[in-house]
């Protein structure tokens, strides 16, 4: 799960991305406008407050007009109420719009991920995809709810203050603006350093977390090999770097805030010195002077606020770049005719399956390459009659699993074609095609939910009785019954509490409950004890009954009694026939067989024992 490519930050504003982001706002334009109005109103009433104080001093207090003071106080109260309402409206509408947009985006990203080819999943680790669905979408929410809006509010109040100051007294206003370049300079200095140190801190935080995660999970190993002191030393180093990165960042904050205050004080001093002189000369009133000092304080806040928003904008731009990159990835494996369908409207999984289909498969001159130029399958052809049981053997990398990927259209063939009952699989809607298959994988994947839910897998139309029946048929029923809540026992953390063999049996029950015409088995697991293995073998026979079966195996014992065995070698179909026929051929299969059984007790009578040689076929085993 490389996170480094996710940390590259680009520019803070990109009009192309921004235009596309604004489109998400379209369904909510009414509420967005309301929020905008509320912001303008809020800025206006807040800016009116110092003006009111000035009027109170100059027009009424200085002249001894108490009723005027009362009016001002009431007006001030009015601005308070106004500010309250404006901010309430702004926050609620804006945040809710943000939530809606986030919802829309998550749905869009999720739907697209569900349609994307498996090739995309091969290139992108799940962790990275998760970042898209979670934190990238969050960053864009921040952009809508606080980023853009508060920058807008800041700009607005800045413009308002500038306007008011000029209206009050343009000379004093110019004097106040004198310090602006200083503010910008300090802010710029602060921003660049803080960004740098923030990035540094984040790097160490993630290293700290990664280290901890790894060492907590691997604590047993650390202890067994007495690496405690070394691990502690390493942890101390990362922890120390993390601390020092933080200590460095304190410096910038410690300098920034007092520096900004000092600039503020400079402008107050300027106002006092020059403005005071003008008061003495009678050109301005004391009320104006006091109002100026108050505004000068408010003047600097939006500027430093805006500088903090910069990072947020930058993060949001980077996130949207990545999100749009994902959304723009084309889907190549689609239903025939239609570009693609929204999963919600696709041929529903609960739809009745066309039982009439028999399950005959023809693989006709199929070649395939994951990466153009390096063919993983080369001109493979074979026919599977309905109900026939086929075993596929070959070393890792020989193309066995690829064949299954093509059958279920996880990938499309590079050349040649695959038909099921005479129809090219590219002409069948994906949902329908896959409903003909039940796939049993080497690593059994369990979903959160109950045991029954994992057998039924979202197909609510499979009744409890059928679930139980399926479990019984594959010998899963006894161990399920022994679980605390039987079939309703929740599956904890991907089935951590179940043994490998039990998980395998569950996946068989799942396949049986689906009752497909074609069963696809990818290498039954190897690390189970003999008793469980016998159970599994027996369950397999039940499962294969009356179904077209394609089984991939490393261990020959699992497929010896198949109707036909295909031997793949480096992407080519090299041998085909029954176990006996293949042994008699004395080719690749025979060598594989020799290698697997020569170490066991008596040599089987199937073929004369020859001296075992290390075969090239086995050399790339486990690559």
């Amino acid at each position, binding site marked *: 799960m490389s996170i480094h490519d996710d940390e590259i930050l680009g520019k803070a504003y990109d009009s192309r991305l921004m235009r596309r982001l604004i489109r998400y706002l379209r369904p909510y334009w009414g509420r967005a406008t309301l929020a905008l109005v509320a912001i303008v109103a809020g800025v206006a009433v807040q800016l009116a407050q110092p003006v009111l104080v000035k009027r109170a001093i100059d027009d009424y207090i200085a002249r001894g007009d108490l009723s005027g003071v009362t009016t001002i106080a009431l007006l001030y109260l009015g601005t308070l109420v106004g500010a309250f309402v404006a901010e309430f409206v702004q926050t609620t509408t804006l945040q809710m719009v943000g939530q809606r947009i986030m919802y829309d985006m998550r749905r869009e990203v999720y739907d697209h991920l569900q349609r994307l080819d498996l090739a995309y999943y091969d290139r992108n680790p799940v962790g990275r995809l998760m970042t898209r669905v979670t934190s990238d979408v969050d960053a864009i929410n921040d952009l809508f709810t606080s980023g853009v809006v508060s920058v807008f509010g800041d700009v607005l109040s800045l413009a308002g203050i500038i306007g008011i100051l000029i209206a009050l007294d343009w000379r004093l206003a110019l004097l106040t603006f004198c310090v602006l370049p200083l503010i910008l300079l300090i802010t710029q200095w602060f921003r660049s350093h803080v960004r740098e140190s923030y990035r540094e801190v984040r790097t160490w935080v993630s290293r700290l977390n990664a280290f901890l995660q*790894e060492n907590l999970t691997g604590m047993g190993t650390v202890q067994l090999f007495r690496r405690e002191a070394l691990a502690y030393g390493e942890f101390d180093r990362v922890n120390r770097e993390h601390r020092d990165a933080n200590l460095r960042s304190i410096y910038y904050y410690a300098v920034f805030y*007092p520096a900004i205050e000092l600039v503020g004080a400079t402008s107050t001093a300027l106002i006092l010195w020059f403005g005071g002189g003008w008061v003495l000369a009678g050109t301005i009133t004391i009320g104006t002077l006091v109002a100026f000092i108050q505004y000068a304080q408010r003047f600097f806040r939006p500027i430093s606020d805006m500088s903090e928003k910069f990072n947020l904008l930058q993060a949001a731009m980077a996130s949207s770049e990545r999100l749009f990159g994902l959304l723009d990835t084309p889907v190549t494996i689609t239903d025939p005719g239609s570009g693609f369908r929204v999963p919600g409207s696709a041929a529903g*999984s609960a739809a009745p399956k066309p039982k009439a289909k028999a399950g005959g498969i023809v693989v006709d001159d199929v070649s395939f390459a994951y990466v153009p130029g390096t063919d993983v399958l080369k001109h493979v052809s074979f026919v599977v009659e309905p109900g026939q049981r086929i075993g596929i053997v070959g070393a890792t990398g020989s193309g066995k699993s690829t064949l299954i990927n093509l059958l279920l259209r996880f990938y499309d063939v590079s050349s040649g074609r695959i038909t099921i009952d005479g129809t090219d699989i590219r002409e069948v809607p994906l949902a329908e095609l896959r409903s003909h298959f*039940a796939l049993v994988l080497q690593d059994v994947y369990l979903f959160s939910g109950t045991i029954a839910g994992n057998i039924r897998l979202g197909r609510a139309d499979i009744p409890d009785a059928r679930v139980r029946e399926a479990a019984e048929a594959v010998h899963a029923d006894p161990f399920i019954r022994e679980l605390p809540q039987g079939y309703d026992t929740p599956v904890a953390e991907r089935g951590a509490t179940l043994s490998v063999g039990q998980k395998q049996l569950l996946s068989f029950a799942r396949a049986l409950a689906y009752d497909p015409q074609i069963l696809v088995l990818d290498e039954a697991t190897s690390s189970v004890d003999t008793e469980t293995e016998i159970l599994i073998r027996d369950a397999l026979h039940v499962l294969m009954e009356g179904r077209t079966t394609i089984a991939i195996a490393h261990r020959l014992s699992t497929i010896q009694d198949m109707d036909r065995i295909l031997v793949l070698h480096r992407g080519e179909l090299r041998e085909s026939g029954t176990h006996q026929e293949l042994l008699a051929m004395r080719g690749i299969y025979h060598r594989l067989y020799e290698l697997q059984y020569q170490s066991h007790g008596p040599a089987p009578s199937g073929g004369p024992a020859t001296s075992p040689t290390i075969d090239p076929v086995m050399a790339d085993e486990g690559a």
Partner: protein
Amino acid sequence: MLAALRRLLPYLGRYRRPILLGLSCAVASNLFTLLTPWLLKYAVDDLTTGVTRQKLALYALGTLAISAAGGVFRYAMRRQIIGASRHIEYDLRNDFFEQLQRFPREYFDRARTGDLMSRASSDLGAVRMMVGPAAMYAVSTGVLAIAATAMMISIHPRLTLLVVTGLPLVSLMVKFFGDAIHDRFQHIQAQLSEISAIAQEALAGVRVVRAYGQEDAERAKFLAANDEYVARNKRLIILQACFYPSMTFGFGLGIVAFLYLGGREVIAGRLTLGEFVAFNGYLGQLAWPLIAFGWVTNLIQRGLASWQRLLDIFDAAPSIVDAPDARPLGTPVRGDIRFRDLTFTYGGGPAVLRDIDLHVPAGSTLAIVGATGSGKSTLVHLLVRLYDPPASSVFIDGRDVREVPLQNLREAVAFVPQETFLFSTSLEENIAFGTRDAEGPARLERVRTAAAIARLDKDVTQFAEGYATRVGERGLTLSGGQKQRTAIARALMTDAPILVFDDALSAVDTYTEEEILTRLRAATADRTTIIVAHRISAVRHADQIIVLEGGHIVERGTHEQLAFAGGPYSDLVRQQQLEAELAVS
């Protein structure tokens, strides 16, 4: 609570100098802040009565000087206090990790990594916020609030009373809202991790989802979780929408009261205009402390709760520790192992092992077979004290393992566990994990030798970067067999006199298994070896084989003695031969 706080004192004490210095700076800087409105008061009063340019210049310079001096103290305050809090965080985190290292395997079986991680990050962060920013703001705003109020009283006591009395309500409000917001925020975070979990499941299991046409069902789950997320956010949004404006509103009421009452006093001649302006300035300075009080209270509350959660870990006593009179094994360790009347239960449950009597002479090989759950793994776990055996039941070279220092015991035993854990470093580092050798050609040579015995060498030649290939979570994903062979090489590197393979060949195919075992026999001829296995092929050459059933030794002997004895072992042999002979049927 006080007791818990006392536990924090040693950490604070280490940094008492910067903390005290920082707090003094906080007080000083705020005293300077108070001077500005005071100066303004004189300036305005002088302006109404007439003043010289020189005096104005003095006021202007005064403003600058006050801000500069205050700034210097504020700078020092932040660096000292926040700096100290980072040091304390560092110390706490180190101690936390060291404490976790003391816990036995049993602890990690029960604890969830995610939970421990959150204690190490967010709880520690909350404690730091309490000893750092919260302390800093509490002191500095406290001083400011008290002093500003005092200044206001000195200007006009009755006005102060009228204007200020209602303001602490703002603090109470901040506290109330802060609590409620925090609470709802937690709910939102929980829902977000729910969304993540659902998405993770659908993405990681994408093949199964598609093969079984589960897209719609998964989508419905995902959208339902998102709906709930929006709903929970809505509850927070409404709270937030009330919170910030009502704070400014509450405070604004004080200003309204002041405008009216203060204005009246000026008109009545009981207050100068300068005093009015200064009073207004002090009132403005109260705003932040009032908000900060509420905020600081929340920080302290959260910090205390988190500190309690950390103390839970610090106070948990590791159950497996060195005995006070522990003595290392004699050198050299011969590797003679004996189990004597060993009966073992996990935390008072049913007995997992019963009446185990067993002697493994130094240099010999013991194989343990039996069904899943028969106690095979437990037996070898007890040898290295992953769990603690009862006293006087497990011995190495005649010494009770409980009386041997853990460090020394585990040095004597190289253990290959069922599940291999690879660290995300190079393959070489992973294999050399148990050695103290410095990196270099000599070590790499030893790594190569160990990898060759474990039959990992051929695989490595196919990796682009050979032994420098990065593996583990953020590197190359090894197959189950490759992982196990790495673990075997790792164990071989240690030169420990005792080797234990806890079902460590299960993911390796039969052929490679045989190869490994043959090489191992040569390499470990003089070492005591214990092999836990399922397959006959892995155990047949052992000097002694025991069959476990329900925690009992039901059979013992050599392969030749047991294979045709008609007991459970010969059943196993028959079963596995049957498998092979299915070929000819």
